[in-house]
């Protein structure tokens, strides 16, 4: 009796689950995001920012290094919509070029950190035992240092600069992905042990590569997206205490840091990069929220 009544439902479930995963996952996610107005706005702004970064040379009215020592610190005008900085460079052009550095440092740090994390997470989950123990203890230690302080420490050692900052900031993204991947692999390994008393076999390899990594992709993607915003802010913070990206690279945080002494006399030099940081982080967060809801309404960070 129970079987009869439940049968239809379970058939239904199996079928939809398969199709959902195999074919139209991307489509469903896209559809859900498109239906969520805030996520859509976030996505549109994000796309605009990325386009701005990619096509910076075509959009920016001037080169970001082009100086005009006769026209420094000028307020916003028609020629220089965001004004000029203390070397007479066009702030708007610098903000446009700056999106390249700010966005890329955010995205690349998270990508790097996540890749490292996934690698070690896979190793920990796959080998288990001592290896797992060592990796997880190390992650525990890493997580008990406040992220900002860890980034500062590593930056102090590596020195300032684009790549060094990126390395320093990527560390913050490691623990999350280690834990996610390890947990998924341990889950599967548990099942394997139940099925057959053999140790890890070829099937496990295949499962890890084909199923676990794609499946942990969703949560990693969501928290990774959210982390990008945080990393952009952290990069700005590093620049602020003199450890981040150095001029003349027009990273937004370093533009604020460089112009903070002018906050009373020429506020436009710090206002515009500040606004763009806010827009970028805001749209990443809006998009991340939407992505989370779309990938799994129950997946809450």
């Amino acid at each position, binding site marked *: 009796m129970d079987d009869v*009544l*439940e049968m239809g439902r379970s058939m239904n479930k199996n079928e939809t689950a398969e199709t959902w995963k195999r074919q139209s996952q991307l489509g469903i996610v896209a559809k*859900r995001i498109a239906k969520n107005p805030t996520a859509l706005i976030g996505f549109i702004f994000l796309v605009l920012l990325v386009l701005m970064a990619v096509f910076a040379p075509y959009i920016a009215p001037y080169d970001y290094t082009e100086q005009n020592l006769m026209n420094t610190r000028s307020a916003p005008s028609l020629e220089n919509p965001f004004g000029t900085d203390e070397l007479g460079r066009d702030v708007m052009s610098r903000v446009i070029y700056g999106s390249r550095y700010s966005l890329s440092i955010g995205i690349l740090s998270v990508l790097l950190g996540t890749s490292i994390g996934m690698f070690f997470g896979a190793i920990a989950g796959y080998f288990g035992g001592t290896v797992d123990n060592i990796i997880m203890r190390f992650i525990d230690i890493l997580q008990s240092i406040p992220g900002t302080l860890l980034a500062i420490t590593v930056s102090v050692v590596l020195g300032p600069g684009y790549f060094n900052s990126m390395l320093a900031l990527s560390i913050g993204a490691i623990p999350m992905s280690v834990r996610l991947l390890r947990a998924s692999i341990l889950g599967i390994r548990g099942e394997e042990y139940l099925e057959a008393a053999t140790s890890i076999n070829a099937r496990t390899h295949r499962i890890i590569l084909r199923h676990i990594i794609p499946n942990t992709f969703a949560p990693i993607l969501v928290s990774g997206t959210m982390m990008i915003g945080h990393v952009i802010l952290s990069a700005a913070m590093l620049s602020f205490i003199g450890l981040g990206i150095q001029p003349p690279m027009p990273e937004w945080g370093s533009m604020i840091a460089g112009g903070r002494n002018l906050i009373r006399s020429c506020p436009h030099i710090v206002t515009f990069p500040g606004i763009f940081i806010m827009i970028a982080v805001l749209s990443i967060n809006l998009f991340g929220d939407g992505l989370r809801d779309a990938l799994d309404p129950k997946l809450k960070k």
Partner: protein
Amino acid sequence: MSENDTMLSVRDLSVEYTSEGKVISAVNGVSFDLKRGRTLGLVGETGAGKTSTAKSIMRILPDISSRITAGEIYLEGKEILCLSEKEMRRIRGRKVSMIFQDPMTALNPIIKVGEQIREVIIQHNSISKKESVARAKEMLELVGISGDRYHEYPHQFSGGMKQRVVIAIALSCNPELLLADEPTTALDVTIQAQVMETIKKLKEELNTSMLLITHDLGVVASACDDVAVIYGGEIIEMGSKEVVFDNPLHPYTQGLFEALPEMEEDAERLKPIGGMPPDPSNLPKGCFFGPRCPHPGENCSTERKQLVEIEPGHFCRCGRALKMENSNG
């Protein structure tokens, strides 16, 4: 039977849910009456609208995603859908209470079980805290749990024990109407009978009317006086247990009985009902059971059927049943 004997009367109740822009019609014009002291079994598949009906009676459907679109519910002759939330609160837990399907999640994990019982007692009775604690302990004892476990938390209880706590909560104010939503589904088979016995015993002791929601005809047979079969949010057959069990008229009801294993027959001869239940967001135009019906008529796919009293006290929503009954009589 006078009007006063009717504990609960549901008229043309319709409930809709909205999810991701889709409208789901969960209940579509359900009507039934429940007499004082009797037990009505509401039988149907998952998603047929049983729980929504019960929750509508309690008025505890989720505010944001669902809506009662039509109908009236009379409790002792009094319409309750138009009551204010404040008035409704005096009814919930005191006059009407509900036992939920899954005892694992029905209890608040971080409040002591005794407190969870006491909460409803003190809400509806003006008694001291001390008295309410004593009453809560009594209730625990009543459902077969030692009163000493008042201070324990739900995670310290087994599934069956938790369901007993839920029952204790539901019965602690001597409700006149008990809505039991698949009270045994989530339990081990061995526990199911015990819990069902407890419910039956307490119901009789307290002379409570009960709406028992289930998909298990066995439970109906042992615990109910009347039975209503619900499909696609509609009642398709209703009557006293005896008439319906002796003479199921609707093809769906017949299908349910055919799928029921009987002691003397082989399990292989079970006949499952083919096809799937209707999609509540996209219901068929005609008879909701039409696509799965073994005996489809000409206009079944286009014409909505009415619930008709085919023999006294036996209602059915099927043209074929009506014809057959007419030709027989």
